[in-house]
């Protein structure tokens, strides 16, 4: 993250401006991205990497501009599925964590099912999804949910259990019910953990939505990926991947921002 330093003292004023710029939160990732894209472009050109393998950023840019309508409309579909799946995973994930902390026995009983829901590949049971739920947006949201809720559960559980014995004593000394202990102590203590879980969840919800679109859908970026792949539109494929990544970053930083808004006392 260095910038050229002018050899003479005269350059102080503009350098200060650059310094301030370099300190801005978006600067480092931007420099990184620009650098990566440049390296990529040069490598593809110099090593003569074939187009069907890895198109150059310039090709991807052209394809992206040409197919902007296609990319945009499909991105919106994926975004909607992702958000639905994410919202579900947040709610259900926290609820499951609460249940598992409140009734450890139920927690132990549920755990195998939760782990199974993670390790069983969705594509393997896709026919079941398709037959029971049908194809399309619902299936994608559902798979997004299944992929995303686990980190929420695991992190929220850790958070709900992160309270000190002293604070529990305090709550009980006030005659707090189990529910009040949750509301006034465990949940606020768990918030930073839940946010971390949600940061993972939003990333995985995107993956889930895409996988759902692979399995059966006629829209969305995942659908676009499959189709452009089959129809050898490699540049459009990569343009879709870029849009996907941009969406991922936006959502990820969005959740992070949300976290900062919620956790104000730090």
């Amino acid at each position: 993250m260095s910038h050229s330093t002018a050899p003479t003292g005269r350059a102080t004023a503009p350098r200060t401006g650059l310094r301030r710029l370099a300190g801005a939160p978006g600067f480092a990732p931007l420099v990184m991205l620009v650098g990566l894209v440049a390296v990529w472009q040069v490598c593809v050109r110099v090593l003569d990497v074939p187009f069907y393998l890895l198109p150059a950023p310039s090709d991807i840019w052209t394809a992206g501009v040409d197919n902007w309508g296609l990319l945009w409309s499909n991105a919106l579909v994926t975004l909607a599925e992702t958000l639905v799946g994410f919202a579900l995973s947040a709610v259900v994930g926290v609820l499951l964590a609460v249940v598992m902390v409140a009734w450890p026995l139920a927690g132990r009983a549920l755990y195998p099912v939760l782990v199974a829901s993670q390790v069983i590949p969705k594509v393997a049971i896709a026919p079941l999804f398709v037959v029971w739920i049908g194809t399309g947006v619902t299936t994608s949201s559902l798979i997004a949910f299944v992929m995303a809720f686990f980190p929420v559960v695991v992190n929220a559980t850790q958070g709900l259990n992160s309270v000190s014995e002293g604070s529990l004593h305090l709550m009980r000394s006030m005659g707090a019910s189990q529910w009040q202990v949750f509301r006034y102590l465990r949940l606020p203590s768990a918030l930073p953990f839940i946010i971390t879980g949600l940061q993972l969840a939003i990333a995985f919800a995107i993956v889930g939505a895409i996988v759902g679109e692979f399995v059966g859908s006629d829209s969305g970026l995942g659908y676009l990926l499959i189709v452009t792949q089959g129809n050898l539109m490699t540049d459009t494929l990569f343009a879709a991947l870029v849009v996907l990544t941009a969406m991922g970053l936006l959502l990820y930083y969005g959740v992070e921002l949300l976290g900062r808004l919620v956790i104000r006392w730090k």
Partner: protein
Amino acid sequence: AAGTTDADGNREVRVALDWNSYVAYHAPLVIAQEKGFFDEEGITTTLQLTAGSKDGVLAVGTGKADIGWVDLSTAAASMMSGLPVVSVATVQHKNATGLTVLEDSAIQEPDDVRGLRIGSTPGGSDSTLVPAFLSANDIPEDDVTIVNLPANGKIAALLAGKVDAISGQGYYAQSAIADAGEEARTLLYSDAGADVLDHGFVAGNALTDGDGETITAFLRAYRKGLDYTEENQEEACEVLAAESDGTLTESFCTSQLSGWLELVPAADTDAPWGSNSESAWADTIDILQTYGGVEGDTAVADMYTNDFLPDGQ
């Protein structure tokens, strides 16, 4: 659903397709819609994209669609395990699967594959056909190296020299390789003693048991679409590409379509158009059972019917 009619009094037919986006070989269906061939027969069709032939057959078998455009060998395997569908027409008479090699490859005939690396995708029909092909040509399986590759990685692997040949739809691989500036040719398994069924239509028992008329009407309209497509390949691809919302380019469609159309005509010209041949079905089942690990006790005769062909007996 089957048997229901719309406002115009047309019968509604839901057609499951074998892929989640339009492929060149879907052109006749879209043309038949576009040119009003279905309307002429008093039916209205809706096309449903599915994740693959297996899912297309499943859609028909579970009543989510009435007719399916699918790979019949995949359908046969599903029928074996009890899925209630039957084939009502074989459209593509020559199987498209084979070994595709680069133009300058030394491979000319089956025997030349000894000692080579073959890229194949597990779980698909090509992985079933590879051992069938080897066996038909008396090549021990140990004489070749099978490299399992994802469907979307095969062409790159061939071009990059990671494998010497790839197993899969010949016309598809050829046009893809042409697109990358190389030339390729295909040794079709169907020319080398390992033949199975390829694309055709299946229907569920809702139609076959009570509404055979609709099937016949559907096939008649489809055939008009097919004929029109053959005559007007450019236009067909233009229509299909437009229908595909930009997910299929016209040029890719045309290069695929001409390759595919060559595989359509029936070998036995005496039989009516669309006939399912007893021997082709028996051979397919035989290969699926021997090389594909497919099990089941459905009788071959229960897997197809020629009762609803438009030029019926």
